[in-house]
């Protein structure tokens, strides 16, 4: 994204958060006169002055699990998760959603502000308490807004439309590419690349909308939507473990093609509505090898796509090398293959497929992947996926303690509250549909009792009952 100021707000923003966090820690450990504290304040002030001068002001907002510096969303990865998380908690404890720094800020204004963040939050109304205390300090160029006033910077509808467009185009591209492959025609790899580039961009800027898209179950044939969903989940995991944009692209490309080998498997097997015979399973289990071989034929890559080949070849291998295909030579599935394996299992486990058992509710799939070592997934990567999807992923059909039916619509960004997402309530306790689904934040507590407003008591699979969760999420 270009900025008139010429500043790289992504980098400056990351630096700013690191500096704020550093000053916070310094003040936690030492008195204000300490050299370390003074140095941290000086560094912070210089950085802020540069940003304010270039941008005419600087607003740091915390929205969900993302930070924004003005309109730039700062990228979260392994190199900054701790900094981001700690500073977000410091603001969150005081109910602060945004900190606006105005032109003219002086160095002396930082210590009072940061010191106040270190104090314990004030009772039931933390923001109001903080604001009142803050008003007594000589700070004039820092203004605060409460969490409740801070919204997503982009219009939800606009985000959703962009995600819909990317998703629909990607499914179409996957369909064309896989179809061409089955017919032995040349694949338009450029279109595939463009689709993956679109998915990467959307995940980086609009992750939750893209996750919503994966709940679409009847948008197109499973083979095509599954390929795109695996691509989306893989890129989400990749982003969380710190892969950069180009690496996410490499990962996404392989993820989109992970099942490409199925194009050489008999369609009668792929589409068989009932369970497969042993021989049919044997044939189906050849698809990873066929995928590897098909990718050798595919033209349009600047280099031989070795990494993508391995994602196709290894995505059904377990971490102990059981699974398939069998291995004779020493092998350790690549990290990218293990990511695709997790993404594939999650999407496949929650989908109705041909030759497949009853789908599981998303939370049950995650739990099984995390807790059952026989499944052979990389449990760290499963955990990473859970931090993105929450304990109850978007699209999970839940029954609340009020006996209402609801669909999980948004993950709680607070790692401590992953089990308390936002939901859309779709029916009353007796099953009557609500005229307009109501969105509830399950992390909210009843001020009177201190107990959660609602709790999930049970999850179930929407497909089992023909519940089209996307009807409630895309609206």
């Amino acid at each position, binding site marked *: *994204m*270009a*900025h*008139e100021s010429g500043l*790289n707000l992504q980098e400056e923003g990351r630096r700013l958060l690191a500096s704020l966090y550093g000053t916070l820690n310094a003040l936690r450990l030492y008195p204000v006169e300490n050299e370390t504290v003074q140095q941290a304040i000086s560094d912070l002030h210089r950085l802020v002055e540069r940003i304010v001068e270039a941008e005419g002001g600087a607003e740091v907002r915390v929205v969900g699990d993302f930070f924004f510096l003005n309109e730039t969303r700062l990228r979260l990865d*392994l190199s900054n998760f*701790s900094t981001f998380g700690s500073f977000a908690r410091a603001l969150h404890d005081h109910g602060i959603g945004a900190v606006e720094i105005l032109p003219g800020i002086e160095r002396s204004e930082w210590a009072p502000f940061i010191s106040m963040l270190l104090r314990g939050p004030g009772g039931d109304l933390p923001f109001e308490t903080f604001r009142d205390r803050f008003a007594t300090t000589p700070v004039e160029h820092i203004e605060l807004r409460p969490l409740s006033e801070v919204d997503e910077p982009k219009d939800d509808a606009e985000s959703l439309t962009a995600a819909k*467009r990317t998703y*629909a*185009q990607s499914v179409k591209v996957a369909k064309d590419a896989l179809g061409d492959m089955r017919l032995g025609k040349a694949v338009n790899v*450029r279109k595939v*690349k463009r689709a993956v*580039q679109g998915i990467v961009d959307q995940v980086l800027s609009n992750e939750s909308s893209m996750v919503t898209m994966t709940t679409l179950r009847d948008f197109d044939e499973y083979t095509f939507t599954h390929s795109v969903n695996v691509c989306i989940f893989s890129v989400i995991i990749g982003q969380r*473990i710190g892969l950069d*944009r180009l690496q996410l692209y490499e990962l996404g490309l392989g993820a989109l093609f992970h099942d490409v080998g199925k194009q050489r498997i008999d369609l009668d097997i792929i589409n068989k509505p009932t369970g497969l015979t042993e021989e049919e399973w044997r044939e189906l289990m050849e698809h990873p*090898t066929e995928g590897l*071989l098909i990718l*050798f034929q595919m033209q349009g*890559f*600047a280099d031989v796509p*070795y990494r993508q*080949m*391995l994602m196709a*070849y290894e995505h059904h291998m377990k971490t102990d090398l059981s699974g398939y*295909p*069998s*291995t*004779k*030579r020493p*092998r350790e599935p*690549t990290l990218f293959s293990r990511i695709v394996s997790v993404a594939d299992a999650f999407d496949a486990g929650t989908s109705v497929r041909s030759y497949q058992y*009853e789908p*599981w*509710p998303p*939370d*049950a799939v995650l*739990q099984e992947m*995390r807790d059952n070592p026989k499944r052979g997934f990389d449990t*760290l990567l499963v*955990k*990473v996926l859970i*931090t993105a999807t929450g*304990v109850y992923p978007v699209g999970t059909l839940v*029954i609340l303690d009020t006996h209402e039916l609801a669909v999980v619509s948004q993950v709680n960004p607070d*790692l401590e509250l*992953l*089990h308390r997402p936002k939901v859309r309530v*779709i*029916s009353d306790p007796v*099953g*009557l*549909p609500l005229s307009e689904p109501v969105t509830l934040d399950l992390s909210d507590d009843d001020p009177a009792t201190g107990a959660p407003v609602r709790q*999930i008591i049970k999850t179930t699979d929407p497909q089992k*009952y*023909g*519940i089209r969760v996307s*009807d*409630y999420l*895309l*609206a």
Partner: protein
Amino acid sequence: MNEFERSSGDSMEGGDVLWDDALPVEDVRQLFVTLAKAFRAYQLYDDNNPVRRRFLEGLRTELQRLWTEMDRIVVTVDEDHFYLDGREVYRSESRADSLAFLFFKDGVREITFLPGVEGDELERFLGVLQRARKLVPEGDDLLTVLWEEDLRFFEYQYVDLMAEGVTLPEPGAGNSSAELQAVLEAEDEADEADEAESGEADEAPPPQTVKQDDFNPTLYALDPREMETLRSEVRKELARDTRSDVLSALFDRLEEHHDRSRQTEILRILSTLLPNFLSRGAIVPATRVLEELRTLERRDGVLDERGLTEVGAMLDAVSARDTLDELIKALYDGTIKATPTQLAGFLTYLRGAALPALLHASETVEHKELRSVLRAAVQGIARKNRAAVLTLLEEDDPVVAAGTARLVGDMQITEAGPALAGLLAHDAASVRLAAVEAAISLKASTVAGALEHTLDDPDRDVRVAAAKALGTLKYRPAARALGGIAKGKDIRGADIGEKVAVFEAYGAVAGDEGVRLLDGLLNGKSLFGKREPTEVRAAAALGLGRIGTADAKESLRKALDDDDAVVRSNANRAFRRED
């Protein structure tokens, strides 16, 4: 209907062209002239070249000047032109050099420069153009290059082919009351059933009543140690040689003999990969391919006859002269940067057919280390292909014939004697010389007879080597010929080295019978009381030293106090048998 997609996500607006006379059209025109020049300089010169830097500075200056008049420069693109608000600001003379066509051919229809592009991003932008120029049709396109570069101060719109025929997903009306009620009822019943049943099918979904575990963050949150593990996994992944993993996969599957058509496909892939590896200088994976193929070739029952033929053909192809010429070229020009061990590993898998090319290279390369690796490889292959070595003695290439002769000597291939004798009559002196040297190594009497005829070889080095060889072999029948040379006129005109070789050889083969001749040359005087020239006398002394008998020593003793210092010195050396 195509859509235009802006890199920032906005759609392109159509409409009438509105001419704005306030636009600095001439300045923008000049900007593109400068851009074209700067791009040419960027292509031609290295990073620090002053010409390149000057053009870049010029471009920067023009952009900075324009920012005082415009807040962005938006131009539309057709095959040969850029237009600012409908007015031409760039026209290309030829497609080959056209900046406009570079964008147009990959679907870009509008480009925008934003303030800031003149900073660090300018060279990256030129780098994009440079990469775009070099793109091959089957590889990436400009849009991918632009996406990868992720420029912040340069935007573009392109024809979005993906938008064709796409319907956006829209929500349905939601479920009916009956459907929702059915869920609640069924789940209530399921709860009751769960309570009644203790066992469950392996793949049936478990009951999903919420459990305490769901709320335990330690089960799903990553701790710092786990984060570090993942970070190190990322580093490992990015440094990983995925080619090796792919090869393991291919060979795992190639060993499965139940699917012959797959084996054929894999062999075809390998035959493509091998040159691909070598062209990229990846000698280690190339070696792995050869190693695995040779192992497979030797295992019974893995490949059918056709497969074995294909493997054989592949291994033969690597050993072919053309391939090896390419390999040597690649080693020379740095395309392949292999350590001696890596190169030796690759060469191990070559076959007899590789010998001529390798021999040629091992005889001609100037790089000492490379030469030594090649020679070791040649010997390794030759040891397994003795018969092939013999046939190489008949090679037309004199470098190969000479190298083979030396190889024959080094490897003590005694059966090569007759062929070596034949080489003594070769047109090339280098070959005759190598054959003589090989004869010395072989100590082959079959060659010694032929060596005698080489004593009058037109090439001085060959003559010297032949004399030395005969001396070393102590081939007595040659005494007469050598004696004749020693007495003759020609040797007196030869250099000291040749003289010494002949006289020493004569001493070695003639023994006591040669004392008389050599004593006469060392100590005798002519009718006019004149001694032989110094060099002849000194060489004769050395010849006597080779004889070493009492008579020879007596002859030498006479010269120990000779007036001629050179003679005296050599007589002393010979007397004391200092070789």
